[in-house]
């Protein structure tokens, strides 16, 4: 049963690479946005909040299609990036990472935002009276105290990214070795007459990865509580 074929390995490793890159690139943006939503009041805040959550409620195929229109070779942003920076998303694994990053973004931002909101502002005030400029208050007090939430967000985002299907296949198709992630491979296998056992193996791997991520996120959440109480 657990005789994983080279094609399956390719899909697994590609999924891991796509999800890792998507998470690492999305995290700084996620932290910045979470901080804005948690600590600042500005015009259009609820609009921004809604935009962040959009991938969660839009049909993934719509998100994928919008990505294709924007970041495809003839898309407004995609065309410019290809011409000026040589970065191409369409039908590449980088496009899969972009799709996964966008789809997992709401799950990444939420725990970070909640953990920043939980940081006692009186501690930030104390840091300021001790001579810390605003960005150093963030770096030395807010972020370290929110760190478990940041890790929880990264794990959840990673878990979502590794399983993403709809937006990815719409945006970058299902090309073995380039854009065929675990999910796309399962999709192909269950449409193939003898693909059942291979599909089952990948399904088990997906379940293990997802459960592992949820457990890890829970552990980080518990550490956050201990950290906030200074134990």
């Amino acid at each position: 049963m657990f005789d994983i074929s080279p094609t399956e390995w390719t899909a697994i490793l590609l999924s891991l690479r796509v999800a890792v890159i998507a998470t690492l690139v999305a995290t700084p943006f996620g932290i910045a946005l979470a901080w804005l939503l948690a600590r600042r009041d500005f015009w259009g805040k609820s609009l921004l909040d809604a935009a962040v959550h959009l991938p969660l409620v839009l049909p993934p195929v719509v998100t994928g299609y919008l990505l294709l229109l924007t970041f495809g070779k003839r898309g407004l942003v995609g065309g410019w990036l290809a011409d000026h920076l040589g970065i191409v998303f369409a039908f590449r694994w980088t496009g899969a990472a972009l799709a996964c990053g966008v789809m997992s973004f709401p799950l990444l931002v939420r725990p970070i935002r909640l953990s920043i909101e939980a940081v006692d502002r009186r501690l930030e005030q104390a840091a300021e009276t001790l001579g810390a400029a605003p960005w150093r208050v963030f770096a030395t007090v807010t972020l370290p105290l929110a760190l478990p939430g940041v890790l929880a967000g990264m794990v959840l985002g990673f878990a979502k990214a590794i399983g993403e299907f709809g937006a990815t296949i719409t945006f970058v198709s299902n090309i073995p070795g380039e854009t065929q992630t675990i999910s796309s491979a399962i999709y192909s296998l269950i449409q193939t007459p003898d693909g059942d056992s291979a599909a089952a193996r990948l399904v088990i791997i997906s379940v293990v990865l997802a459960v592992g991520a949820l457990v890890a996120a829970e552990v980080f959440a518990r550490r956050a509580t201990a950290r906030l109480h200074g134990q």
Partner: protein
Amino acid sequence: MLRVDITKQLGEFSLTAAFTSEGRVTGLFGASGSGKTSLINTIAGLVRPDRGTIVIDGETVDDTAAGIHIPTYRRRIGYVFQDARLFPHLDIRQNLDYGRRMNGLTEDPAQHKRVVDLLDIGALLDRRPGKLSGGERQRVALGRALLSKPRLLLLDEPLGALDESRKLEILPYLVRLRDEAGVPMVYVSHDAAELRQLATQIVMLRHGQVTAFGGVKVLTGGA
């Protein structure tokens, strides 16, 4: 020297205060709701006055007419809050060192030792804030503020959250601080007995107005 001449409207509450204090410990005395905390927060720069000036140690940190408002982190003040507000993710040693790091000061082991000895916190250095008693936390908070080498130390009811016996435990440290640390202090309290022991000058506040200013004897006038 501390010179304050400000007005500030906070919702329904209006605060007006003008005084110049040369004293080592300026006591802000008044009942709760009299504007003591608002006044000390204005001196700290956490609250921006609507009108007026604040001068700390010869430097104008607020002057609304000239558009001057130095942010809190550049005022070189120390602030001890009623709740110690130690950083829970740092141990005591790191808490004490925080102000020095943020102000870019060079290490000063002699002063570090002096403050640690003065406050008797040497045994706590490797502990976490969560494991400390209320009195210990407040002593560490005092040390942390002192080690940032402030030119003015602000204390907002530093004994307010402690029970009677803990108060008596901390009070001698505050007296030593006043006599040995050489940093002028502004000390907020609603407890006349506490101020009689510590303060050299008193600013009496009532409903946001200064009702008396002078030596400790103004406390006997009642409020």
